[in-house]
């Protein structure tokens, strides 16, 4: 089966999210005796293609689409390059979730959304969490072409490999809904910290931090001492303590780091859905009965305003020893 990976570009660079979709493509292509190609689509598609050519694809296809990201401008061009592929895949970031169903409807394909595993024994079947991660479903797509989005935390990022793939220009198609929808602009959130969905260590804060200032003065030093990504509960994002792109949970990012530290987070079902796949989970909370205990490996019953600074210096000391 031949697989086409839809790369996610930001300012002419392929986002790391793409590397998880490449791993899926490689797995399926190898198991079924097919090949995988990568579609570099968006502004700066040629520059991104040079980077994407390092991942062992049969070829990298470029398609320059201007005007900021909109499914209406990308979907027709993805569809125009989709012929001959049995599977189209992207990572289930906001980009993948927004774009791929639109492509699927265009080409009459079924969608396997946000999958965490694939089985290649008898055609393709997919595993995916449902009910906020409380049920695992196994599903098949019945149409000739299958459209898939993969959960980033469930597929290891692909490593660069071998000789550079050839790059060729692909087809482009007129956008849909011209005059009916325009991308006006985007306020890109930049951070020096590791990407939340791909980090090895995540430290998340909840409403108990009480303010944006406390996130900065209390939580961030621990985040940086651990070289971690920072996350937050829905309540903390809603309250405006941190930006919304840091939300971990059913409606935010799904993370599965080696270490997840939940600080002042009670552990609503919607939050657990976004982090219970983590390898080691630590809770720091005043309330020893908080639902986060259901998934925590280690639980420190303490006032976070004492415990977190103390932990920051303990981690610093460890780093120096």
């Amino acid at each position: 089966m031949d697989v086409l990976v839809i790369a996610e570009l930001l300012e002419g660079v392929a986002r790391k999210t793409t590397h998880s979709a490449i791993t899926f493509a490689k797995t399926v292509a190898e198991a079924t005796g097919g090949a995988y190609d990568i579609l570099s689509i968006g502004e700066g598609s040629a520059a991104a293609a040079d980077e994407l050519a390092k991942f062992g694809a049969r070829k990298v296809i470029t398609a320059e689409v201007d005007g900021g990201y909109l499914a209406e401008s990308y979907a027709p061009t993805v569809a125009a390059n989709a012929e001959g592929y049995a599977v189209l895949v992207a990572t289930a970031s906001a980009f993948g979730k927004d774009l791929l169903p639109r492509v699927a409807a265009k080409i009459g394909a079924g969608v396997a959304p946000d999958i965490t595993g694939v089985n290649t024994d008898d055609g393709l079947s997919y595993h995916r969490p449902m009910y906020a991660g409380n049920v695992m479903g196994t599903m098949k797509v019945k149409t000739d072409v299958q459209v898939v989005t993969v959960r980033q935390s469930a597929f290891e990022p692909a490593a660069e490999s071998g000789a550079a793939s050839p790059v060729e220009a692909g087809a482009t198609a007129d956008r849909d809904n011209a005059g009916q929808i325009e991308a006006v602009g985007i306020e890109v959130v930049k951070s020096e910290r590791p990407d939340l969905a791909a980090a090895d260590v995540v430290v998340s804060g909840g409403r108990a931090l009480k303010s944006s200032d406390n996130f900065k003065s209390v939580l961030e030093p621990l985040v940086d001492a651990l070289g971690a990504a920072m996350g937050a509960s829905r309540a903390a994002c809603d309250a405006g303590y941190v930006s919304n792109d840091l939300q971990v949970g059913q409606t935010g990012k799904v993370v599965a780091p080696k270490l997840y530290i939940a600080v002042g987070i009670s552990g609503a079902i919607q939050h657990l859905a976004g982090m219970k796949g983590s390898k080691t989970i630590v809770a720091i909370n005043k309330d020893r009965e908080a639902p986060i205990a259901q998934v925590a490996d280690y639980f420190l019953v303490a006032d976070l305003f004492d415990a977190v600074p103390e932990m920051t210096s303990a981690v610093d000391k460890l780093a120096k020893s």
Partner: protein
Amino acid sequence: MFDAEPFPEEEESEARLKILVPIKRVADPENANKVKVSADGTQVTSEGLEWAINPFDEWSLEAALRLTENRAEKKRTGEIIIVGIGPNDDGMMRTLRSALAKGAERGILVEADDASLDSSVVAKILAKIAEKESPDVVFLGKQTADGDSNVAGTITAEHLGWPLVNYATQITVADGGFTIKRELDTGVQTVSVKTPCVLTSSDRILHPSSVKNGITPDDFAYPESDHARTAPLRDIMKAKSKPFETITLDSLGIEAETTVEYTQFELPPARSGETTYVESVDELVQKLHGDAKVI
């Protein structure tokens, strides 16, 4: 008999937004960890759990209500049509009536077996109803709390050939449409869209000033809450007399042909091991460094 109307209709001169709001009923999402799987693994069972409105639909309904009212004067200024798809049972009717009680004008139930539905069939049904009703907006939840698919809204837009804005967090009525801020992973995107269009919403749509419809005064702030409005009891009683239509897939000319098939369900493996309660930060750091070897 005198029927008191707490939200009288605005004069016809106002541009009345007409919004279709699909509603799914799901097993109580606050207790999603109590759903079970049948012994043969072919079904998810939610015995003992109440049906509830899909919370993502509830947010979109709240946004649709804010778009079609003058909240300061407690007047409805537009029309909301609730659409349910599924079996005609108590749980469904209660869910749809609670949506009507919050202020929606009328309801439609498309009778169907849950098992015959997937995102693509749902999208086909919604597109068909949208063609019949010609709303300005189809406003869905971005996902359902059971399937967690994130697919039906987008396919609906493609079927209709309408523009789509997923994950809206702020909506301002503008000339012939809306200016919308929406959450992407990389930041907040501003999009300008004309009606008719398809929208889905994100968590922040419940913020006090997330919706500006040009009718409710711009400085009006909805209550600080992470929940949508609830309907007063008297409106729940009254919702029973609102116009409601029950139709079949046949009458829409739709064949329920799914594009995906679930073959197996299972409960996820429990996290191994007990919770270790540590006494101090030192002990915690020692365990993370020495035992778990994660720092």
